[in-house]
């Protein structure tokens, strides 16, 4: 009798993680565990200045240079550009450098110590050019450091006509300016790859990464080889958070170039300092808001100027900006909206993907602005929000009609109930009036996060997932979506098992390897569960249809009958495979030119409440309690889902109060974990996670996306709480004790 039959549902249960056992027993193999015969070690020589022209490269004394493999831009067989959206970023600078960590020379040798010594012995003489380091300098075109006008990308979203509103006499106008800092992803495993490359076999790369097919595409261009000559294999990956979305294409190219020239396998593993300094971080941002509200507290117009600092090259700035832009007006209905968004260039290492992807920046600004407007109206922050929450049938800033059930007011009520918001708000106000040196506050943020690629992104991606049933009835999922700690393998197996009514253990997820899995798109944008998961579901159902179509399987079947059907089918016809390709749900229409339409297939909706204490003696702000309420469709795996929220909130606490990148001449001066400080277990509050589940018809088993959502809410909620505690409406993050002291110093006796 089948086990599967007795289990009514696999989705929604906390089944053990697929790769969990291997990870806790140490059997899981990460890239640095990989050693190939004859393997040598690579290192990168980088620029020493933010911007300049390379004059001369000298290879200093005391190093047996003839033993080393040395690669410069001249050794590149194909195009010297990391293929992503634009082809502007070189693998190795040949004449100009545009940021202080720009790679110039690659070295490799069997002796790790010698490579490090050699790296130190390379002297690159660079004639400096005037650099640009801030959004303001770049926007003012003080120097043109990229393209014609320092602008990677700009968007204009227009809904209604804001200009007609400003002069109306029934509105109140409130302006504000908000800033967010850079943030480092701080995955546990640093970036690393191993590469084999030669003219006969082509190029094979193993590495820690989120998007094998991005690397694949980049290497095709770099080596000018046909796609079947490039193979990319993901090794077990210790976290990504977006930090392994685009950067692996760079380091993979470097290792492959060294392998190509030396004829030997090459390993490059960054140490923490190099990883922090040289790889991508979250885009810093500057947002200006101008909001018009009617006296009864309805939004009449929102004009938003949203600018992000993209660093020296375009990388993913255009799409980060896009997501930030679309989220900039939030889960509110406003008839007139204009969003002017821009990604500008500076001479810092390129900023890139990081969980939330532009949305945490613009949502931070919006939520602080909403609090400010509420104050101007003399309404409570919650009442002002309630009057403006978007409802089913209303349109977002891009005029997307909300067709799903959405109940932000209900989520707000739930979050307030769980956090005791109203009681605490009143009590803290009374207590703060006293002489105590520790002030308390409670605050919240209401927000939404779109799942999947923005606009027509998913249509362009055309993602494919395969399922293969072997003769013993086991089902193998073939997808390029990577397990990076978030639980891809587990939820895919759950989704397929649920669809086929088979036991969870009968489903396996194949290792992402471009030689054997189809391109299911990148593992980013909260798309893995909702978009790719849906493809997993339909590919799995395809297997069943085939078996049933061939008359081998009845409508209702046991696991044994399934096994038998698979055995007979493979005997007769060979491999049993089924593929499924993305199709947009009906009525999802996007106009790229006007930046208008259905930006996302679905949104997750959330209300986060933070409670803080601020010590007026030490200016230490601490998050004491946190409630996260969200509607994310059906929850596939409750433990993993809660883990996503908890981790995202912790990262958000760091973003708000701890993690400051100290920039010095475009370089991260605190590229180590002793002085780039992230919150520890002692600094993170209890996080109470609550899911409202409204099944989404186009998601697998009703699920939507979840991964990025929790990054959006903590910072504005925390600053709102700090505002209650201190009476000061801070407008920037990270908010450090020094900042609090500067602002509150006078309040001390």
């Amino acid at each position, binding site marked *: 009798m089948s086990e599967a039959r007795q289990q009514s549902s696999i989705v929604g249960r906390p089944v053990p993680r697929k790769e969990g056992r291997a990870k806790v027993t140490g059997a899981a193999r990460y890239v640095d565990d990989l050693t190939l015969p004859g393997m040598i070690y690579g290192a990168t020589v980088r620029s020493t200045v933010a911007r300049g022209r390379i004059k001369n490269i000298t290879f200093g004394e005391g190093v047996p240079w003839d033993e080393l493999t040395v690669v410069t831009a001249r050794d590149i067989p194909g195009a010297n550009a990391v293929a992503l959206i634009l082809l502007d970023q070189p693998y190795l600078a040949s004449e100009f450098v545009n940021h202080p960590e720009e790679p110039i020379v690659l070295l490799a040798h069997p002796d790790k110590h010698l490579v490090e010594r050699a790296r130190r012995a390379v002297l690159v003489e660079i004639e400096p050019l005037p650099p640009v380091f801030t959004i303001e300098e770049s926007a003012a075109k003080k120097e043109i450091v990229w393209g014609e006008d320092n602008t990677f990308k700009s968007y204009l979203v227009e809904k209604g006509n804001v200009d007609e509103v400003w002069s109306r006499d029934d509105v109140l106008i409130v302006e504000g300016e908000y800033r967010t800092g850079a943030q480092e992803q701080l995955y546990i495993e640093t970036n690393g790859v191993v590469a084999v490359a030669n003219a006969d076999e082509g190029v094979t790369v193993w590495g820690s990464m989120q998007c094998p097919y991005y690397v694949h595409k980049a290497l095709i261009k770099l080596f000018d080889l046909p796609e079947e000559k490039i193979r990319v294999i993901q090794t077990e990956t210790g976290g990504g958070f977006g930090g392994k979305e685009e950067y692996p294409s760079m380091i993979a190219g470097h290792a492959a170039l060294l392998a190509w020239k030396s004829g030997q396998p090459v390993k490059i593993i960054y140490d923490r300092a190099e990883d922090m*300094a040289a790889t991508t971080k979250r885009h810093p941002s500057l947002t200006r808001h101008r909001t018009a509200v009617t006296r009864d507290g309805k939004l009449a117009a929102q004009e938003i100027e949203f600018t992000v600092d993209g660093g020296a090259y375009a990388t993913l700035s255009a799409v980060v900006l896009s997501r930030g832009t679309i989220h900039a007006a939030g889960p509110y209905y406003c008839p007139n909206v204009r969003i002017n968004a821009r990604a500008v260039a500076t001479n810092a290492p390129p900023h890139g993907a990081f969980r939330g992807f532009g949305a945490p920046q613009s949502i931070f600004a919006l939520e602080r602005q909403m609090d400010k407007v509420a104050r101007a109206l003399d309404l409570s922050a919650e009442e002002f929000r309630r009057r403006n929450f978007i409802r089913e049938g209303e349109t977002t800033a891009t005029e997307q009609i909300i067709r799903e059930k959405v109940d932000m007011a209900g989520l707000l009520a739930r979050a307030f109930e769980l956090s005791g918001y109203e009681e605490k708000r009143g009590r803290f106000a009374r207590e703060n009036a006293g002489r105590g040196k520790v002030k308390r506050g409670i605050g919240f943020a209401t927000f939404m996060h779109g799942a999947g690629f923005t606009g027509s992104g998913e249509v362009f991606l055309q993602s494919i997932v395969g399922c293969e049933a072997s003769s013993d009835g086991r089902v193998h999922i073939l997808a390029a979506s990577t397990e990076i700690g978030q639980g891809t393998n587990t939820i895919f197996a759950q989704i397929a098992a649920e669809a086929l009514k088979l036991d969870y253990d009968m489903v396996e997820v194949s290792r992402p390897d471009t030689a054997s899995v189809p391109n299911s798109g990148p593992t980013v944008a909260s798309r893995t569960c909702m978009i790719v998961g849906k493809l997993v579901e339909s590919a799995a159902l395809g297997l069943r249809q085939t078996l049933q179509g061939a008359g081998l399987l009845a409508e209702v079947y046991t696991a044994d009958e399934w096994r038998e059907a698979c055995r007979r089918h493979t005997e007769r016809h060979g491999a049993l495979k089924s593929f499924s390709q993305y199709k947009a749900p009906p009525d999802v229409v996007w106009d790229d030119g006007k930046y208008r339409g259905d930006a996302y297939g679905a949104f997750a909706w959330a209300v986060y409440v933070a409670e803080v204490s601020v010590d007026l003696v*030490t200016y230490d702000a601490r998050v004491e309690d946190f409630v996260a309420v969200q509607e994310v469709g059906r929850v596939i795996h409750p433990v993993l889902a809660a883990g996503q929220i908890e981790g995202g909130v912790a990262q958000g606490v760091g973003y708000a109060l701890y993690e400051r990148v100290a920039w010095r001449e475009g370089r991260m*001066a*605190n590229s180590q974990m002793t*002085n780039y*400080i992230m919150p*520890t277990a002692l600094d993170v509050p209890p996080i109470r996670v609550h899911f409202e589940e409204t099944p989404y018809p186009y998601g697998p088993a009703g699920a939507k996306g979840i991964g990025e959502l929790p990054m959006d809410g903590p910072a504005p909620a925390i600053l709102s709480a700090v505002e209650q505690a201190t009476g000061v409406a801070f407008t920037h993050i990270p908010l450090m*004790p*020094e900042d609090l*002291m500067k602002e509150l110093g006078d309040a001390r006796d």
Partner: protein
Amino acid sequence: MRLPKFAYLAPRTVADAVKMMGDAGWEGQFVAGGTDLYPNMKRRQQTPKTVISVARLAELNEISGDGKSGVRVGAGVSLTDLIEHPVIVRDYPSVAAAARTISTPVLRNMGTVGGNLLLDTRCNYYDQNYEWRRGINFCLKKDGDVCWVAPGSQKCWAVQSADLVPLMVAIGARVRLVSTLGERVIDAAALYRDDGINYLHKRHDELLADVQLPALNGWRATYKKLRRRGAFDFPVLGVAVRLDVERGGAVRAAKVILGGIAPAPVEVPDAEAALVGGSLDDERMRRAAEACYVKARPLDNTDFVMNWRKQMTKPYVLRALEELR
């Protein structure tokens, strides 16, 4: 970052250890838990050719005595063992509490009392990897000839950053140093020099054998540490206070030592004077805190702006004194 190559020796007796050090000369260095030395070696701040471990020296791994007679703590005792030792917990709670503020449980399992007392001084321009430091052309403390914190200064201002140091100085602990030339016992206070490079009055070849905690005869002490997070972080200010209080409640003697602001622990005689002579009332406490505030002149070479660190002196001294009230 990788460790450079080095020879590793693991002697079993103190006599062997100091002999090996004599042989190794300037190229030799002792290591205990290695939680400071190895990272420093990876960053090429220190580059010994011979590293001599004290981990196997039984004599250095003991805690003996009690509060009545004083306690001898071997330099090789791990911070975890120190914190958990029943006699320390009972008789020297301030020592256990100060040690508990050091870094994290994992690092305390490896880190030792001796390593803590001899911890290298720290500075934002120095605790960086080689490339980073090369990027600024190094600094006085290692490989360079400018101090970036105080350009024009011929002195290095790297900061004393070990949590046990201010407390050991405040309570009047003594340390025993051994070399091939014999041994000597000096006050912990006499161990430190106000120079970020040569921050110890200890010859390079001397082994720190143990720390002697004074007998309890009515004194009490405490240590308060300023840092950003609940774990990991080095102190950016440490306040250690010892008070000898008479039966009637009058303060007979006081020691107030600030850590984390200068190359050596800083004694504040004005604060001590303010505290002595009567009972610990608000006014005395306020004057002591004020004296510390005046004396504390942190430089801009640790995390956080120095003004914040200076501002924190008063409340931290008050917190320490309140605890001893």
